[in-house]
């Protein structure tokens, strides 16, 4: 078991659409290729696919919301008091 690798793998499939698509086609193979153990790979085969899709969508929407405006904005930052 390598918890650090597992967290890195999860971060990638949560954020990277191409990595997620490859994973969903071959979860076990992608996990093994990323260096995860057979037990970890098996657990990822059983991943909550609905949750993965919803989480990825939510992250994507959050990134879009937080993306800086294309032109300089007069809006103050979150820190302004």
């Amino acid at each position, binding site marked *: 078991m390598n*918890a650090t690798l597992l967290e890195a793998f999860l971060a990638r499939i949560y954020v990277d659409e191409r990595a997620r698509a490859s994973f969903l086609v071959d979860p076990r193979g992608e996990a093994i290729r990323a260096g995860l153990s057979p037990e970890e790979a098996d657990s990822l085969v059983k991943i*909550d*696919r609905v949750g993965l899709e*919803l*989480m990825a969508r939510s992250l994507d929407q959050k990134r879009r919301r937080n993306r800086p405006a294309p032109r300089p904005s007069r809006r103050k*930052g979150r820190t302004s008091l």
Partner: protein
Amino acid sequence: MTAKADSFGIGWRPELAGGILANLDRIDVVEVIADDFFDAPGSHRRALRTLAAQVPLVLHGVTLGLASAVPVETKRLEQTARLFDDVRPRYWSEHLAFVRGGGVEIGHLAAPPRTDATVEGAEANLERARRVVGVPPLVENVATLIDPPGSDRDEAEWIDEILRRSNCDLLLDLHNLFANATNFGFDPLDFLRRIPIGGVAAIHLAGGKWVGAGGERRLLDDHLHDVPDPVYQLLTEVGARAHRPLTVILERDGCYPSMECLLVQLERARAALREGRKRHTARGEEAA
């Protein structure tokens, strides 16, 4: 610095600044996002100190990633420590989440696999946090849309282990609890029975919305909606079980309603907790 009585407040957001400052007679405490001030100009730090002189503050972190097998970054802890020393808040808090891995920033608070590795990682990270900042954080349960892959225990067991091993207190986010219970089919009252309820020191309240995929729907904790009724009911349940004073914070991150609407939600929270306190007292009197 601990509160002697239950106190109720709101998360500081620039959009709410005027409303908060105009209503400090109805707001006992203000929660500030710590990370927003790590690299802030001196003028913003001075403004924060001015705010701290007017109302008790609590600091809330969002980027440490404490519940991880990866050691928390020293630089972020040192920034937290400097801000803590600068503002002297009532407490500081962070999430039991991982936020990055393998160089990838998730941009969100993700629930890690609930395993021995993340219990031990959280314990080590919380010890480092305590050492660098000088005070341990309250740790917060997070909402998740995905059942954390690779887990070998449920959320209540995982949080209970971390709290017991780290000796940290809990910032119990009741909307996160409600959302996870709704999405993954467990009883939130059973969760309250299984965690060390005496360790709950603070409460978060928020709202969310339903999202769907593959014919299923789940509750997203988005902080963009009003606090739903079941969350107030959970606050009453906590009041009936926990005896120490609680700091209750209403979180709102957008789609801002009027300040009066937020203050009404704060009043509902006061009433809900008061109701639980009465039940707690009545139970104590019965037992005596």
